[in-house]
């Protein structure tokens, strides 16, 4: 019951925050030379531009402009993307799916590998695996994602040619239908092993690079919560019952250590979104990150603004989901102990 209340409370906050985000984005748009540039398509006649200006109340005071802009948003008008030569709303879906696929793959790698490494480090505290894990963590937090990506590109792409750039090989890609917009899923649905392999080959390197930074945080959190869990009395009590060491670690210590780690998983998703910008740029991955980097270089305001809005929305939703999951899992928190 309390979980639901908590969920409702957080859900109620979401629109408020999105409103705040919209204010910030709107403010940024007014900083550009010509706010109408967001909506203007190339080759527009002066009359059309004037009509746009009237429509969006660009000669009116700021609050009215804001209202007009929000109105446009709700009508589905996010402006014209110069880099994609199309309305933002047309292209954003596909880009979003591409980034989502990358982020999920990286997230899975980061969580699975990070939890495993952190567990070992915590159990073998102050021994070799622990030191290795800590070094890994701190390097992960100090290495710029774009540089790491370049570093891996040279051996794996240039020398070994194991992993190609981009998202797919065009012939294979067009051989199957794309209901979800995520190549790997589409390949599974179409039961095409060739497409699936192609998808994975392209996905693996960028996903690993992206996962690196997130993994660093997860390993560190998992390690410290494992160390804490291992020193708890219920671990001794479990041993005293005659349970084998592996069971004690897995079922008793780790299960409790995973709890605080889930909060970090939400945080690391923010890292994934950020890292995606550089990763998509370097690996030519056609997602939101690559989209916005092109936009930045060509002054495409509509794309940038849409990008900020959608990223904030995704980030908040993920954090909400993680917090609710945490509240559900840690019954002590929910029941107020």
């Amino acid at each position, binding site marked *: 019951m309390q979980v639901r209340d908590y969920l409702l409370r957080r859900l109620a906050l979401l629109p408020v925050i999105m409103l705040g985000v919209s204010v910030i984005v709107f403010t940024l748009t007014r900083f550009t030379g010509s706010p109408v540039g967001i909506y203007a398509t190339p080759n527009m006649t002066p009359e059309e531009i004037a009509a746009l200006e009237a429509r969006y109340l660009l000669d009116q005071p700021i609050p009215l402009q804001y209202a007009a802009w929000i109105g446009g948003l709700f009508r589905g008008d996010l402006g014209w993307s110069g880099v994609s030569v199309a309305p933002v709303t047309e292209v954003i879906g596909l880009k979003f799916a591409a980034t989502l696929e990358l982020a999920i793959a990286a997230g899975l790698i980061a969580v699975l590998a990070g939890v495993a490494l952190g567990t070992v480090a915590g159990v073998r505290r102050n021994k070799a695996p622990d030191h290795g894990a800590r070094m890994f963590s701190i390097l992960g937090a100090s290495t710029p994602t774009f540089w790491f990506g370049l570093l891996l590109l040279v051996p794996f792409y240039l020398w070994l040619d194991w992993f190609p750039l981009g998202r797919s090989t065009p012939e294979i890609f067009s051989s199957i239908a794309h209901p979800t917009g995520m190549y790997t899923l589409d390949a599974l649905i179409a039961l095409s092993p060739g497409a699936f392999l192609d998808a994975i080959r392209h996905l693996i390197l960028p996903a690993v690079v992206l996962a690196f930074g997130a993994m660093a945080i997860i390993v560190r959190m998992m390690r410290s919560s494992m160390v804490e869990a291992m020193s*708890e*009395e*219920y671990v*001794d*009590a*479990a*041993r*005293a*019952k*005659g*349970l*084998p060491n592996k*069971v004690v670690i897995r*079922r*008793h210590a780790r*299960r*409790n250590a995973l*709890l605080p780690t889930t909060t970090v998983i939400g945080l690391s998703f923010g890292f994934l979104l950020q890292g995606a910008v550089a990763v998509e740029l370097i690996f030519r991955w056609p997602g939101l990150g690559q989209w916005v980097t092109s936009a930045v270089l060509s002054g495409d305001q509509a794309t940038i603004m849409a990008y900020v809005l959608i990223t904030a929305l995704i980030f908040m939703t993920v954090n909400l989901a993680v917090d609710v999951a945490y509240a559900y899992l840690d*019954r*002590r928190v929910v*029941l107020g*102990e």
Partner: protein
Amino acid sequence: MSQDWLLKVEDLSVRFQSRGGDAHAVEGVNFEIQPGETLALVGETGCGKSVTARSILRLVPEPPGKYVAGSIKLNVRGKGVVDILSATTKEVMAIRGERISMIFQDPGKALNPALTVGSQLAEVFGQHRLEMILAAAGIDPSKASRAEKRIAKQRASFVQTRIFALTRKKKAETLQKAIDNAVARSLADTGIPNPKKIMKSYPHELSGGMKQRVMIAQALACDPDLLIADEPTTALDVTIQARILELIQDMQKRRGMAVLYITHDLSIVREFADNIAVMYAGHIVETGPAKEVLANPQHPYTSGLLGAIPHRRTPRGELAAIPGSVPQLINPPTQCHFASRCPWAASACKTMAPALHTIQENRKVACFRFDSAEDLLIENAGMPTPAKLAGGN
């Protein structure tokens, strides 16, 4: 010396590595527990009684601890004698929870907060009574599948359990029922009302007394020969303390189980212990039948301890505390560790370590006062002799 003993601790020495050197937590400890006996291991915090208790189940983490010397022999009925300290891991795991069980001070901390109490109890059955559970579910233990065994042991993953429940609905139900019944019976045995409901609860949903009952149920699930109770009442309300102790005594009588109480609460000793062993700074300094030792303590530390307990006849304003403090245990000098606080210390006490001597049948003390004056070359002839002390403090 009868051969019917249940547990024999011989010359146990446990040390802990620390930055400044090795801390001698337990030194040369000897004691015996008979089947059905209630022994209280008494002493103040840090005297080594908890380490001794955990050593019996080999629970001391090894680093930083190490079992430097000694043996802990368990007389397993029908199987002979096992030295726990030199046994294989498998043998030790078979003993833990099955021949020797332990309950801990704070049941709130000793129960895993992420699992239901029923699940934790079921683990014990899964580990030590697997065949029984499987048989109760109508499964032939020798033909049981891995999934069935894992579920019985509470080790199946979430996914595995769900798949099993879907694909073999009937079997899953009977298996779960068998587990639940065993758990419920165990809980009911300790007087817990409504065991089916309690089983599904998480530790934080239960009261302190209830949690301790659950721990006791868990410890006694496989009918062990020895129960080690490490400060079982310290974390409980006074009103519940008595009930829990009576419960333990009751279970003890019904099953003929021995109990080792680790405590600093002398009232427990008075009411429930047959024998007492007093520990100080890692050594046992006095042993004997509880009633006699409490009425007539022989070791200066014991008498100091008893003198420190306020009771009705203590004059107002006087609380006799033992002056000084427990000595540091890192690389300790060879001497009686109580010498600096002992009102009867002689020069010999500061240069040699006294061993446990039998001064009467069943009574042992580690103090030089019970050696003859000639052996020790003591100048101070005014030192009190055992005869003078026999009249009480």
